[in-house]
């Protein structure tokens, strides 16, 4: 009596990867349904907040168009924090003011809602408040999904798993091993409300120009990265620490965030602000080495579910969106011959391999392990740099050559020459 629910493609998860896939598919006339567990797309998503324009090409060409973006970034800073100081690098460029802008700061709840609207305009069906419990598999082929709603089984030619860092689908299909605590970071983020003019003044920008600050260093215990991004009327401040370190140091994300807010380099930037929101999320950190199997008969894995995060470059959403687009394109090609087997869907992997997505992830594949094993890198070097800078810049009668000797001596004592050479080689190997 019950008619089976049949679609061409089921996308699980209405995050950037899922919505990218759904939009491309719908625009080509494919009957696609997106199942989202949150109340609305974006309600369960968290990211630092930097969104790249380039990845939207071929999906929503007019981006940003009417999309709710905050500020376009014209300056990117990198800070190495010590207890009361920081050494920083920065690049500010008028070229970033030219359109199309390189990237924008965004709020996921707003942006995803808009993105979902675009997918719906193109013809995709988005169902919220519904959880996909498990895939429906027949003869080792994924033919649909089972949701938690009554009469909630859906069938399709292909299922695109865009269900995020905790991808239930990848797990239940045995495509990935259990996530280890060294392969994920817990990230906590706070949105602090500040007057628009005050933001402009403190960050030295005007109009809708924005600044991003990436932060790491010896100030943090363990392998940690923080950020500060300017939004129109608020500042997003966050920090992410590898779960293993969180467990070992017995600190929680909230504590880390609080201590960061009080750092003398950071406190003045957010003084007088009002906390508007607090969010926590898991971020995949394993990189290339921890990527699961991406394809099987009737299934492709995209986005965070495929662990596609390049944290050193702060890229995750653009990788997700690009992977979503590739999955959609792969489907369109497979649909020509009506063959959705792994052999044909493998084209998805080829596309990824030939693109910056895998190329970048491969380039940095050893970095996660390196940072993990060699705590020196994020602890000792930033401290040393800060001390060195302080020493060199302080005029106290000590001749410069002596100062250099002192610094060198400290470096040798703290780290050791052979270690420094080893580190240099390791880093070079990890990033080449």
């Amino acid at each position, binding site marked *: 009596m019950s008619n089976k*629910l049949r679609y061409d493609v089921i996308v699980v998860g209405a995050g950037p990867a899922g919505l990218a896939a759904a939009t491309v598919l719908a625009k080509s006339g494919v009957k696609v*349904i997106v199942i989202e567990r949150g109340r609305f797309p974006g309600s369960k998503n968290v990211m630092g907040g930097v969104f790249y324009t380039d990845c939207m090409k071929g999906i929503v060409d007019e981006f940003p168009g009417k999309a709710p973006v905050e500020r376009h970034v014209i300056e990117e800073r990198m800070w190495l924090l010590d207890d009361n100081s920081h050494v920083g690098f920065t690049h500010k460029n008028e070229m970033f003011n030219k359109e199309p802008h390189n990237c924008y700061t965004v709020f996921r709840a707003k942006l995803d809602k808009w993105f979902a609207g675009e997918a719906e305009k193109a013809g995709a*069906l*988005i*169902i*919220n*408040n*519904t959880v996909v419990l498990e895939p429906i598999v027949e003869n080792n082929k994924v033919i649909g999904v089972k*949701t*938690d*709603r*009554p*009469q*909630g089984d*859906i069938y399709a030619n292909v299922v695109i798993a865009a269900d995020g860092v905790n991808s239930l689908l990848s797990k239940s299909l045995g495509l990935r091993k259990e996530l280890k605590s060294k392969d994920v970071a817990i990230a906590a983020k706070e949105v602090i409300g500040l007057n628009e003019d005050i933001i402009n003044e403190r960050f030295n920008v005007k109009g809708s120009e924005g600044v991003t600050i990436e932060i790491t260093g010896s100030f943090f215990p363990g392998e940690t990265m923080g950020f500060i991004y300017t939004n129109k009327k608020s500042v997003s401040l966050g920090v992410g620490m590898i779960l293993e370190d969180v467990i070992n140091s017995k600190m929680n994300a909230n504590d880390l965030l609080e201590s960061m807010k009080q750092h003398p380099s950071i406190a003045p930037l957010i003084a007088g602000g009002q906390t*508007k929101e607090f969010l926590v999320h898991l971020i995949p950190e394993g990189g290339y080495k921890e990527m699961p199997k991406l394809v099987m008969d009737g299934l492709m894995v995209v986005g965070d579910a495929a662990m596609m995060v390049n944290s050193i470059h702060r890229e995750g959403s653009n990788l997700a969106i690009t992977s979503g687009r590739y999955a959609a394109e792969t489907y369109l090609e497979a649909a020509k011959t009506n063959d959705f087997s792994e052999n044909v869907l493998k084209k998805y992997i080829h596309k990824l391999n030939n693109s910056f997505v895998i190329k970048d992830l491969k380039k940095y594949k050893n970095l996660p392990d390196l940072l993990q094993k060699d705590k020196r890198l994020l602890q000792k070097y930033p401290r040393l740099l800060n001390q060195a800078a302080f020493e060199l810049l302080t005029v106290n009668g000590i001749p410069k050559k002596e100062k250099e000797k002192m610094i060198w001596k400290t470096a040798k004592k703290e780290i050791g020459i052979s270690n420094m050479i080893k580190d240099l080689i390791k880093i070079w190997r990890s990033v080449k």
Partner: protein
Amino acid sequence: MHALIFIKQVPDASQVRVNYETGTLIREGVPAILNPFEAHAVEEAVRLREKIGGKVSVLTMGPPQATDALKECLSMGADNAYLLSDRVFAGSDTLATSYALYEGARKIIELEGDVDLFFAGKQAIDGDTAQTGPGIATRFDIPLVTYLIKLDEVNIGKKYAIATRLTEFGQETVKTPLPAFFTVEETLNELSYAPLPWLIKAAQTEIKRLSSENVALDKNQCGLKHSPTKVKKAFTPEKRQRGETLKGTCNDLAKQTSEILLPFVK
């Protein structure tokens, strides 16, 4: 059977923040939710439809973007969703609102057929006045059953319903002819988890729009100008301050507290 539910999309009262300097509400970013009491009314109507057939329509009055609550109702199983939106309603108090909704409902009767049961929630969590429902019932001159906790029987053929309502003194079961107007309590039912096909249908259902263009409205009963009650001023109540923290061992605390409570002891 045709049931019509009047719903309101309200800001989540617990998330409303007050700007103590200007004395105004900070509505920005406060999520809007379907008035919880109406969700139960929709649930009841949909259950009735599943049992005896018919259709369920929902109507709300609000700005053009007040569609989230209507979409939620569709996902719960409602068949039709109407948004009555027009600038002429701006500033309406409850009298003007009940008039507007009355005319909107009349239009729906014209388009979808006679209504047997009208529903509204007991009260809205933002305005909390509980007047709109009774006002609409009076305009239609139909029996009003407030604080509904159970619909014991609905007989469309013989045009009557038996309903139980809640008062301070207990429960009262009444028999009323149909059409009748019911305002519901949260305890009327438990919200159920709608089947997936309903959500799919809801996602594909258009929200129908009503305005002064397609609804016959007497402009002399609409909006701020024709609202008998007006807000003279709005202010934030004195923010409650943290009082005294009692100190001492558990026994000390008990002694101190019993002193404080002396005037209340019976």
